[in-house]
């Protein structure tokens, strides 16, 4: 009895923070998304959301999925190189380079990408100067591809950090054991390393999804305006119309997209565990 009281006291402050800063706003936006001004139930806000923004929702889903797939491929590639490369110098350089985007805020990353990817940006100018393209052939990568490139570039550091950490935590002997049975590095990656770091890859990708879903600066600065991502629409509803109910309904949609991916991940990891036991 006394123990449980003191336990309650101990977790009290943390629980209070969660309630005040997370559950209450969540509950509030839930209510606001589903009610009219007189608090009666309505689906009007969602109807409006789908009338006005269904293209943007599709656009967001496509951006998120492509970014996550690219992220998975690239960060596994880099982490595997860090773990398996026989060249220590390459590993040292790569280990330094891949972390840099960690220390750059999204808005700065977006600004950099803007000057890099624009029609007369750094990338195209360099290509033209090298004679690879003529100025007439240059295309602007601003828009959906620019958004994906920026997200992947920025999140790559984070997911590589997690995944390469998990790979480094594997017992080195396990890799050597496969090696002296004749397995190539690629085989070792596929057969020995990946199955064991899958949970971490899942966590890295789910967390990256949540981050991508919540960044406003990148679609605003790199996007072409329409279609755009849900975050930009929420900001627009709030700033231009003070329309909180529709903004909250849009928020619900992004919750659902994240929840969908999280569900997929959980189901997958449960299945893997089931297969093992």
């Amino acid at each position, binding site marked *: 009895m006394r123990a449980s009281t003191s336990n309650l006291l101990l977790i009290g402050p943390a629980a209070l923070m969660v309630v005040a800063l997370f559950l209450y706003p969540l509950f509030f936006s839930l209510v606001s998304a589903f009610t009219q001004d007189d608090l009666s139930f309505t689906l009007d806000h969602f109807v409006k959301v789908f009338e006005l923004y269904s293209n943007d929702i599709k656009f967001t889903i496509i951006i998120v999925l492509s970014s996550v797939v690219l992220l998975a491929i690239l960060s596994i590639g880099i982490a595997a190189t860090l773990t398996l490369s026989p060249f220590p110098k390459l590993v040292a350089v790569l280990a330094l380079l891949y972390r840099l985007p960690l220390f750059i805020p999204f808005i700065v990353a977006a600004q950099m990408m803007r000057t890099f990817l624009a029609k007369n940006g750094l990338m195209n100018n360099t290509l033209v100067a090298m004679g690879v393209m003529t100025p007439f052939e240059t295309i602007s990568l601003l828009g959906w591809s620019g958004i994906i490139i920026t997200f992947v570039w920025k999140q790559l550091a984070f997911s590589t950090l997690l995944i390469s950490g998990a790979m480094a935590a594997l017992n080195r002997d396990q890799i050597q054991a496969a*090696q002296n049975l004749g397995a190539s590095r690629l085989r070792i990656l596929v057969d020995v390393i990946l199955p064991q770091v899958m949970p971490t890859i899942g966590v890295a990708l789910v967390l990256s999804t949540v981050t991508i879903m919540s960044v406003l600066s990148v679609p605003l600065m790199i996007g072409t305006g329409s279609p755009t991502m849900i975050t930009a629409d929420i900001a627009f509803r709030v700033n231009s119309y003070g329309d909180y109910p529709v903004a909250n309904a849009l928020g619900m949609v992004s919750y659902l997209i994240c929840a969908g991916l999280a569900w997929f991940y959980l189901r997958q990891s449960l299945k893997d565990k089931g297969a093992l036991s």
Partner: protein
Amino acid sequence: MAHLDIRQLQVGYGDKTILHGINLQVQKGEMIALLGPSGCGKTTLLNAICGFVPTQSGEVHIAGHEITQLPAERRNITMVFQSYALWPHMSVAQNISYGLKVRKIPKAQAHKRVLDLLSIVNLEGFENEKVTNLSGGQRQRVALARALAVEPDVLVLDEPLSNLDAKVRLSVRHELKALQKKLGFTSLIVTHDQEEALVMADRVAVLNQGRIEQLGTPEDIYQQPETPFVADFMGADNCIIYKTSEPNVQLHLPNRSTAQTFALYFRSSATQVQAFSNSKNEAGLTLSGLVEQTAFLGQQYRHTVRSGEQVLQADSRECWPIASQVSLFVPPQALHVFDLATHETSNAFQSNLRG
């Protein structure tokens, strides 16, 4: 010609050299034990043979082919790791058959080989078990089966028994030796346990600080250690420095002048505890001293005896009372005598002086 031929091998990490000029010839079907204290470079030597660490100089040959620069995956040398290094996400059968899968052996044939190996290592019926559900001894045997599955040119074992508890260790030790005799694989086994090395190996190489101090049959190593380090490491851990005969230290060696300074090493089991007597002119070493401590070992008592500056251990079936004065006698054949002029720099010897 030797099956595995290591010539002047020098290996290190970065600028630090760990192994200095190792020469070792292993015959086909032979089991050699690498024996040495922790940190002397045993694992490093195995890693170099497997190709996990690059060599600084020297050569490694297998069956007449040089493999010094060959990457690990093309060497056909397999290792049984100290940690077993089984893959926890694979079943016992998947672990064992992995090398066969990599070599594209047909499934049916690989499966048959897995069953054969499981029966060889006494794990019938375990093929679908998770390796994480196995005991230490069982994991050890899975690791062994996995390493043997591909019929390696050389099998290396890195302290394979050190993670097992004492009883299991004894039985696995015998199984391993019997298996090695039956299958006749060429192997190098690393251990820091002298008994293990003596029991299992055809020949023993004693390593000290990255050098082979002595290579020989178990009997040679045990009975005729060539250096103070080997003597000490093989259990002759009583050491005294003999300068001249004094009343309480008398040395008579047949066919040998006793006018030099010697380091004498001998086992506590070869040391006889006798009632104190002053004049003894028998061949051998006679010391007198006081019993400081006794410990019951089961078969006998171990006496800690102080003789002047030196503290010695002597075993006897009789328990001599503490503080009684006794004579210790070591027969000449049990004495390992090292001329200090030639063995001055041995570390074992110095650490013994301090201890």
